[in-house]
């Protein structure tokens, strides 16, 4: 009797506690190895006769549960996003066909945290340090070197010739620094080259016309042109209206510049910056008026159009090296040399990669997947 009573009570206790222990038993842990944190891995055990599982989430500060998603069955390692540093709980509810809650369980609070260094980008970090180091080394070394040889680039030599031609013909120089804003490196390069061209126009007393497509570019260009004229000792020739804004729209700007070309017929046209589809429209119109055209861009798809329609084209890296060529500053020339060394290293790396891949060794490629 006493033994039967004991087992009866034990059975009742188990029957009461068992639902509290729960078949679901959800566990949420931060995902390992994720540099940005934010990802939680949730696991829970399936419940008999469950038709679907509803998953909720709330942070410790929140009152109500936020419904996230329903699943017909529970996958292993379900991933969810939470905010870093915020203790968050998950609730899993097993629902039957009649939409009754069979069982509900809540996880312990889980906190995710981002890494202080993204280990997945270690190769890129090392590469960045290496490349920057090489460029800085050659910048420092440039001061000690007598002369840094740079191969002649016809387009850059033609800058002065073009401005001189405009002066002789008594016509203006048209300079377009691209159609994008100052957040593009090509635009900054275009504006830097404008400074050099402005010095030439100040020296030769040629009139300069700089239509721009962005307001910030207008302000920066105006400042550079002003400084260039000041440095040449010709502030009297500077007029703020040399640099003027038309429109942000790509083709409206192309139409405006075409209008300038056809009405004013500049003798020299410089197209230096970031261009898109309007490049051929500008270049062909410039060609039709008989102007000498020098183009330079970092947009690979527009280079063929400029090569076809312009007299000289600075292709790719030549465009970015233009400021060093024109300014002849040893530090800038040193950085060009550093870039060339890096390019050589990249070529060797590509060659090694091709050889190893062709021979079936993938370890070399895998290094760069890190």
């Amino acid at each position: 009797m006493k033994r039967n009573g004991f087992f009866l009570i034990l059975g009742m206790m188990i029957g009461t506690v068992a639902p509290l222990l729960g078949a679901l038993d959800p566990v949420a842990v931060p995902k390992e190895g994720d540099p940005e944190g934010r990802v939680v891995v949730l696991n829970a055990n399936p419940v008999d006769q469950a038709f679907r599982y509803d998953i909720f989430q709330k942070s410790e500060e929140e009152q109500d549960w936020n419904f996230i998603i329903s699943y017909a069955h529970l996958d292993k390692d379900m991933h969810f996003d939470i905010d870093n540093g915020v203790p968050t709980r998950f609730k899993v509810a097993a629902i039957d066909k009649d939409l009754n809650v069979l069982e509900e369980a809540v996880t312990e609070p889980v906190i995710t945290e981002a890494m202080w260094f993204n280990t997945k980008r270690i190769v890129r970090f090392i590469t960045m340090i290496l490349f920057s180091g090489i460029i800085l080394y050659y910048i420092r070394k440039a001061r000690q070197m007598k002369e840094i040889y740079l191969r002649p680039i016809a387009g850059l030599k033609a800058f002065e010739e073009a401005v001189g031609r405009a002066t002789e013909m008594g016509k203006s120089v048209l300079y377009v620094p691209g159609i994008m804003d100052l957040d593009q490196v090509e635009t900054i390069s275009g504006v830097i080259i404008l400074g050099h061209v402005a010095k030439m126009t100040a020296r030769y007393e040629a009139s300069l016309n700089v239509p721009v497509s962005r307001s910030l570019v207008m302000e920066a260009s105006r400042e550079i042109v002003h400084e260039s004229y000041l440095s040449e000792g010709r502030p009297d020739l500077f007029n703020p209206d040399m640099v003027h804004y038309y429109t942000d729209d790509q083709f409206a700007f192309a139409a405006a510049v075409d209008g300038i070309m056809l009405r004013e017929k500049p003798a020299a046209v410089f197209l230096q910056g970031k261009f898109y589809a309007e490049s051929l429209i500008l270049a062909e119109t410039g060609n039709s008026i008989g102007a000498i055209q020098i183009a330079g861009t970092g947009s690979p798809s527009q280079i063929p159009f400029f090569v076809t329609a312009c007299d000289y084209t600075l292709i790719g890296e030549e465009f970015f090296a233009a400021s060093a060529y024109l300014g002849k500053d040893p530090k800038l020339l040193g950085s060009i040399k550093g870039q060339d060394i890096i390019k050589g290293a990249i070529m060797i790396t590509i060659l090694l990669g091709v050889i190893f891949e062709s021979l079936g060794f993938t370890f070399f490629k895998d290094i760069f997947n890190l």
Partner: protein
Amino acid sequence: MSGKFNAFLQNLDKLDRRIIFLIIGLAVLFPLLVPLNLPVEPTGLTRDAFETIHNLPDDATVLISFEYGPSTKPEIHPMAVSVLRHFFARGYKVVVMCLWPDGLFMAREALDEVLNDERFRDLEYGVDYVNLGYRPGNEAVIKGITKSFAANFTVDSKQTDISEIPLMRDIRTVADVDFIFSLSAGYPGAIEWVLYASDPLQIPISSGNASIQVNQLLPYVKSGQMKGVVAGMPGAAEYEALMVEYGLWNTRGEAAKSMDAQSIAHLVIVLFIILGNIAYYAKRKTQKKY
């Protein structure tokens, strides 16, 4: 006689560009008035994009982003219409957004055109598809939606709160979509989608672009980061042909009709090049002679 002919050939070198413009204009106009119905053969790049879309799960949610304007509309709009038609025909849920202000208008036009189809008349806005509209910020918007759609698109294009849109209840971030299709004519565009959304979150992506941009995208296609590319008007015509091949559409699309004109125009350009070379050699011959 041969002297006159030589002189004529040499003068060809200085042919007035207006004559070239006139001939090109007529070459483009003629096939539009008298269709040639040249057959369109889909290429690998377009087929990859098509089959990736076609083989998505039946309950997939897709994101389509409009990044083009009226200038590139002839090239990209036909593919936008075809791709949207494909999405709806397959029963996918469609989220439309724009990273270009002009894209807003293009999205609206494309949706109007596709939803005019009898097959799609019963589709409900907010349940089967939604147009979130345009947000400024270029790639910042893409980065933002990798963390939260609601934080970047508080309302949709009709100014409805995003929390009230049934379709968006299950889509909290871009990681919740199964596929991204970018219709892009420049910056921001497909490359930004690959860099900031598709590659980090491993969401399959394909894009429809102006022909000129395909060069820049081929490295991403070759590396597997993008699943095919629909390249320009030829790509749009190929996509339309694939829609017919798979029984999802039954007529010759706008792009296919325009390809007749493009075919003749290309042929005329090639003939001009040959003519230009004949003139060039005639001139060189005369110069050598003297």
